[in-house]
């Protein structure tokens, strides 16, 4: 009886293992630590976020020291892309400019972007705490979060970005299919 119950389970496992078994045996298995060290893709759930935390106040200091040179004292005056909208709050978000800490649909996108891409020519030099702090500062100056919120791996993914789901979903891509049916005719 016990055997009968287990048997289908074992057979399923066997089929799955067969279908998924490696064919060539080439390549090396990375350790979990290696994967963690390499994996800088921060998705919307924030599950990859490292330990650390940062406040708006700390972010303002880091910003002044490491970002203001290119982005300007308040995020508006530099040669690099502006970081704060110049357009009034009551205007549709899509009309307020391509401002990362305002238009991004997830706060994790802001974190990911700063962490991998900033500062220009000194990428990879910011600590996790500094990235949390900068994210907090930039979200604060765009009125996305209150001044007292500390960002960490738990609070950051919970930030509600103003765009919500007000952006176009990507269509499902299929091989051998026109990109947009009926376009242009």
């Amino acid at each position, binding site marked *: 009886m016990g055997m009968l119950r287990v048997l289908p389970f074992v057979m399923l496992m066997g089929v799955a293992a067969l279908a998924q078994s490696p064919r060539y045996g080439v390549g090396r*298995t*990375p350790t979990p630590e290696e994967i963690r060290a390499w994996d800088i*893709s921060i*998705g*919307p759930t924030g599950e990859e976020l490292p330990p650390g935390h940062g406040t708006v106040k700390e972010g303002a200091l880091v910003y002044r020291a490491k970002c203001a040179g290119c982005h300007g004292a308040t995020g508006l005056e530099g040669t690099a892309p502006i970081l704060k909208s110049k357009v009034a709050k009551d205007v549709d978000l899509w009309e307020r400019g391509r401002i990362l800490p305002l238009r991004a649909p997830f706060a994790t*996108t802001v974190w*990911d972007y700063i962490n991998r891409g900033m500062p220009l020519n000194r990428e990879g030099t910011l600590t996790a705490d500094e990235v949390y702090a900068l994210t907090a500062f930039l979200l604060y100056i765009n009125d996305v979060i209150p001044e007292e919120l500390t960002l960490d791996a738990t609070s950051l993914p919970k930030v509600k970005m103003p765009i919500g789901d007000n952006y176009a979903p990507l269509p499902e891509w299929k091989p051998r299919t026109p*990109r947009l049916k009926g*376009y242009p005719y």
Partner: protein
Amino acid sequence: MGSRQPARREFLKSGAALAGGFTLGAAAPAIGQTPPSPKMIKGDTDLIAYGQRSRFVTSVRIAHGGRPSPDAFGLVFHVAAPLQDSVGVITPSSLHFVGTTRGSYIPEIDPGEHRLMIHGLVDRPLTFTVEDLKRLPSVTRLHFIECAGNRSSRRAKTVQETHGMTSCAEWTGVLLSVLLKECGVKGGASWFVAEGSEEVKGASSMPLAKAMDDCIVAYGMNGEALRPQQGFPLRLMVPGFEGIFHTKYLRRIKVVDRYYMNYNDFGHMDNEPKEAALGYQIGPKSVITFPSAGQRLPGRGFYEISGLAWSGGGAIKKVEVSTDGGKHWNNAEIKGTAQRMAHTRFGYQWDWDGRETELQSRCTDELGSVQPSREQIAKYWNKPFDETFSVPGLDNSIQPWRVASDGSVTNGHA
């Protein structure tokens, strides 16, 4: 044969008598019944080791989009290929267009140290060296890469400026699907993120269906290793998708269950669903490279009109050429066999009567999609077709070239 020998010996003797640095053969006289010899290029170690083109061939890439490349700091921005001089379908690696995310130095990567990691929603994460990848079954395919910013404008003076941000090469590598099967993709996986190892570690989310269909982890280009400007030692080829997805210096592929909205993805956000749909796959596109703007026809008579056609939707099935500004269309000849997501050379035999006219080309791909005119695109979007109209998504509109009665060719959009 026999009569050549003395002349050759004479020639060698006189060459040996000259001090080094003279071009050999410069003084070679016409002897007997053989025509005079051309000047000779003296062999040197470098030329023997790695050949060079003739000094009479001067076609070069140019900085694209108004930013200098290199700039004062040695940063490289966008660089366009000289399509006006191209023949056949392969862009030489030295002339292949270059695009960078935001301007960058070219990373100098030791291939012995480089690793590609595949992880995320897989049964067995794996790390590959370049040597590992070369042990696996390979594919060799012709594919174009085109930058999403490859857009004609009324200011552009040549086809290099209107269309130079596309190129086509023969790529060799391992199908990404082979690597993913080796790792075992878990149920629920639907997207993957590809990441480069340059300074910004540019990353893009792409549909897993594309990975399983035809993506290549390439280590070879035009019969040799990739060039550093093209992603040495590994580049992800995503045939038919916009250039930015063809991740250079590929270091990591993460299999995920949602669009990750990472670095490059933010730039692709759109508020209009139909425009978002134009964001991945490149539509059918063609351009006449000869005669094209900046060139001059020496006089009336026969010319083979020549150009390139390509589509992200597959192989080019048909190319048509108009020699009267789009009033009548004639089938062009497709040279060789059109490959999927590859530049395809076409030709059309034309007798120019010496009168002012306008040349255009349009193509149809294997899906039946037809390259549109700008006017047709404006009509589709219900927008007025005037100077303010800008083609949404990648601009695959028909390019008109105006031929004046003096043979000069100019941009028909100007």
